[in-house]
């Protein structure tokens, strides 16, 4: 099958409502969104705390947060596999080869991205915002919500980048999820499997979905950032 034929077949699969294909997409989006929703609050709070406070070991914390960005997802998958396997400390949860296991993986994969980007966004924000809030009598909580509101475009970029990272990773989902059809098969694990079988159409179809999602998310981010620049440029 030529690349052209495979691509044409891929579009046909997508628009025919192929149940197996859309099930894979659903599992991917669902586990990614849940993993990200769980990772966002602790990552944003931690990123804010590291950015705003001076404490012993802060530079090490920043260094570790940035290093965690480059952790191979397959290594995260291996560690989670060992934790979740029957003999592992989290074995009783029975999350291995389940969607819960993939969600745990997406949580661990997404957290460093969210944390590092939030940290960068808060650090880049003019310190006068937090000082003004404090000088006007805001509580610590209100200072934090004010600062995060002012840094919201950076935090949104963190969430979108985190989503891009979790939905496109393959190593962790494959090791922890097991690529079980209809259960834990995600877009990326399905692409790997179908390609290894020489079934390019489904792989291309899923690839198109991934690209479409990336375009959609980054388009939204660009729109938001454009809005921010417009607002900032009016001063």
């Amino acid at each position: 099958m030529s690349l052209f034929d495979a691509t044409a077949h891929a579009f046909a699969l997508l628009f025919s409502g192929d149940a197996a294909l859309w099930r894979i997409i659903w599992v991917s989006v669902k586990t990614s969104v849940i993993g990200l929703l769980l990772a966002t609050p602790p990552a944003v709070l931690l990123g804010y705390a590291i950015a705003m406070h001076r404490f012993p070991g802060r530079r090490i914390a920043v260094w570790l947060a940035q290093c965690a960005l480059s952790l191979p997802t397959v290594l995260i998958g291996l560690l989670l596999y060992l934790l979740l396997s029957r003999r592992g400390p989290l074995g009783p949860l029975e999350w291995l080869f389940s969607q819960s296991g993939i969600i745990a993986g997406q949580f661990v994969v997404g957290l460093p991205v969210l944390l590092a980007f939030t940290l960068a966004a808060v650090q880049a924000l003019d310190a006068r915002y937090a000082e003004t809030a404090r000088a006007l009598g805001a509580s610590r909580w209100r200072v934090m919500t004010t600062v995060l509101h002012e840094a919201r475009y950076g935090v949104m970029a963190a969430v979108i980048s985190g989503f891009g990272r979790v939905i496109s990773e393959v190593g962790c989902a494959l090791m922890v999820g097991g690529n079980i059809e209809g259960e834990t098969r995600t877009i990326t694990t399905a692409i790997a499997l179908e390609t290894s079988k020489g079934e390019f159409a489904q792989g291309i179809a899923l690839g198109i979905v991934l690209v479409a999602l990336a375009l959609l998310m980054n388009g939204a981010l660009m729109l938001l950032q454009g809005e921010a620049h417009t607002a900032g440029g009016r001063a």
Partner: protein
Amino acid sequence: MNKLSSALLTVQGLRKRHGERLLFDIDTLTLEAASAYVLTGANGVGKSTLLRILAGLDTAEIGQAVFDDKPVALHPYPSLLRRAIVYVHQHPVMFSTSVAQNIGYGLAARGEPKARMAALVAEAMDWAGVGYLRETDPARLSGGEKQRVALARARVLQPRLLLLDEPTANLDGVAREQVIALIPTLVQEGSTVVMACHDRDLIGLPGVRRLKLRDGRLEYRPHKDEAGDKP
């Protein structure tokens, strides 16, 4: 010690170092209630730093401090001072909400009821002459408008002590005059105002006392009308 009894704030043994360098060493800083002060001195002498220390935004070695006859610490900054002292930056930033919400920010932080907050914000906007900006995007404000909104945002909290860092810096013409015109009314309303500045018109305002930071020491100077002293 007569001065101490009528003082709003007295800080003794105030030392600030930048690394090994001693920025200033002030034996006693005394600010009287409902008075206006200008804090002058060469660039880099520590005027802004001194205001920031009093506002709890910077730290220093403090011997002892008394606010309103109560001993206080400046670090950690007590809620008593946080409610009583407001600091305004040289170039104030506006939160990306509305002008009205900016002015009401401190009131919301204090949990003021919405109806009272709306009335106080409206009154503060009238005072600062920024009523026409109520729903304006703060990013659209000019430098002078930002300064007046920042003054309204501070004044609405009825601070006992208002610390203004170069309130007229980079303003000219009408914008500068509008800001200068607001300062005496703050004192008339009972606030003590300390302005770090070089602006001769601010220094020359009636009743304004002069503090000068020089060679790491704080000098008290009478108002030029009292001593015939030239700024």
